[in-house]
């Protein structure tokens, strides 16, 4: 499955490690269960650690681990199951996670822009053709009506900028 990170195809450096296997050198991806069970021990050694977090578990549980996690992989078991969009925004906007946020599962072309807006930066794209067309997916819109995790300029901000200098409010509303 092609991995696209920050807009470019890359080879996944993370090794997915079974719960009962020893952690190898280099970047590892562990399960939520392992992180919960082993806690600190997972971070022993200097390797980058990522966690695969299911979409029915509260991301607030991740808060104590976030400073040491370099990757959180969220799941789209079906592309119609949109729970991970909320999880992504909470990780970025509330919990302040700045590492790699990866979309996994049923990751398709027509959802890539929304995932990006929700804060994802890496994508295990299901179809090779979609991965190749990644840039096009993000370029399909330039107008965004609401603030999200991506910092794109919203219509409200763009209108305010276009109207500058800001109109002076003569009288407050009664």
């Amino acid at each position, binding site marked *: 499955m092609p991995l696209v990170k920050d807009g470019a195809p890359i080879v996944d450096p993370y090794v997915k490690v079974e719960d009962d296997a020893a952690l190898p050198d280099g970047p590892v991806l562990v399960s939520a269960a392992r992180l919960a069970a082993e806690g600190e021990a997972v971070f022993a050694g200097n390797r980058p650690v990522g966690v695969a977090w299911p979409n029915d578990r509260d991301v607030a549980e991740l808060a104590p681990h976030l400073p040491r996690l370099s990757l959180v992989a969220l799941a789209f078991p079906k592309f119609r199951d*949109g729970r991970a969009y909320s999880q992504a925004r909470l990780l970025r906007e509330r919990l302040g996670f700045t590492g790699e946020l990866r979309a996994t599962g049923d990751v398709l072309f027509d959802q890539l822009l929304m995932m990006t807006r929700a804060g994802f930066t890496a994508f295990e794209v299901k179809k090779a053709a979609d991965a190749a067309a990644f840039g096009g997916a993000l370029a399909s819109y330039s107008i965004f009506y609401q603030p999200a995790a991506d910092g794109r300029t919203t219509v409200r901000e763009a209108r305010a900028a276009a109207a500058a200098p800001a109109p002076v*409010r003569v009288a407050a509303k009664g």
Partner: protein
Amino acid sequence: MYVYDEFDSAFLAQRVAEFRGQVGRRLDGALTEEEFKPLRLMNGVYLQLHAYMLRVCIPYGTLSAAQLRRLAFVARRYDRGYGHFTTRQNIQYNWIKLSELPDAMAALAEVGIHGIQTSGNCIRNTTTDPFAGATPDEIEDPRLYAEIIRQWSTLHPEFTYLPRKFKIAITASKHDRAAVRVHDVGLRLHRRDGKTGFEVMVGGGLGRSPYIGKTIREFLPEEDLLSYLEAILRTYNLGGRRDNIYKARIKIQVHELGVEAFAKKVEDEWAQIRDGALRLDADAIDAVRGHFVSPDFDTLEDRPAALVAALADPAFARWHENAVEPHKVPGHAIVTLSLKPVGGPPGDATADQMDVIADLADQHAYGEIRVAHEQNLILPHVRQKDLPALWAKLKAIGVATTNVGLVTDIISCPGLDYCSLANTRSIPIAQRITERFADDARIKDIGRLHVNISGCINACGHHHVGHIGILGVEKKDQEFFQIMLGGKANAKARLGEILGPAIPESEIVDVVERLVETYLELRTSPGETFIAAVQRLGIEPFKERAYAPR
């Protein structure tokens, strides 16, 4: 009217281009039907029994004359010369070819209309009072807030793949004409200590598990509207059920958690985001208000001589009494155009009718048209002195039937004539009821009476909240109809009670007539409406007569 600026127009063009690409990828096989389905649904495209259907969004039911003309053009060019207005203030075309859909959409986008989020598991068109901006009994024009919600909810990156569809309705008037208590979120605008805000109701809805929405906040200041909605939607997106499509609406989440526990989750979430980027300060609200252009109303007197003279004609007076409502500006009136002619399918309008109505709106009503959830059209700003001339022209195109709010003003889903979900037909039942009650003096005597027909349990005809609700069920390949009595969708919304065993198709119109006759016999006076009589008497006397052996 809200006037699109360059941002809105650019957005729409991008949306059409995106859909054109999606249709192309579907046609060449890059997208499977399973992958394409949610994408087309979020552009209003359904696959129905006979063809693709396009549902076009009419934001909060407001249309300009130019937009209505374009709807007529699309009906003529891409469909069979008519369209069907829905209970969610939208319009549907039933015979559009998939390959022509992008062109139809591009034609609509040129005048600022589209099918975005008229279907799919996303936030749908926010609906409101069709009399908004015209009625004297509103606190403020609710379309301002409906537009703010439209912008926030359009392609919302977090809430486009919800457990199920999500419908919001707003009213700003004591008389709730938007049925806010039977929506996923209902908002009632009111004032407290000089501040504008909303009562927030959650978890209403019809379908196979009908619920009346419950209030989770008595007063939400207007500046917090979007952050509070975002908190509700996030709570739903993360916690709503996804294991069973029939239990995936927010009403089930509210019901299973209990309204207090649900409200607490929302409030906890809201506390974290209320002071964030969604906060609507006065400038943000004024900026949207600035995009609304109100008619430059003429200075006119109420009851001008031309109107008074015309009222001497009993036929005109009858229409005036039935279809004309007071306006907030002197010398003006709100006029309802009945799309419920005797023997006709409820809510349909031909392209020719739409063109004439658009012209009449320009000539007599400042170029504005509304769609009501009762599936009628409304000219919200008519000069009273123009009413006689307007009436003559409306009559000529068949939209002046004097049945507004009466027994033949039937709300009906499309039923098995179009819909792939339906168990039974709905439109022919509606047509036969209008034929049975064709006598104008009789329906006037019967008075206010709402009949709602749904061809299946999904309840698109809102049968639970009809004074008489009719639900189509299939038994051994035969069409049967279950009757509900005593429902209503207004500020004191309640669900009807099932009258008794389902009735065969051949007897349904007779039974409706017997219910009406029972009411006429038992009412204390002509002033007691059907629904008041049902509430006073209970369903028993009606049940007795309905099922009495003949």
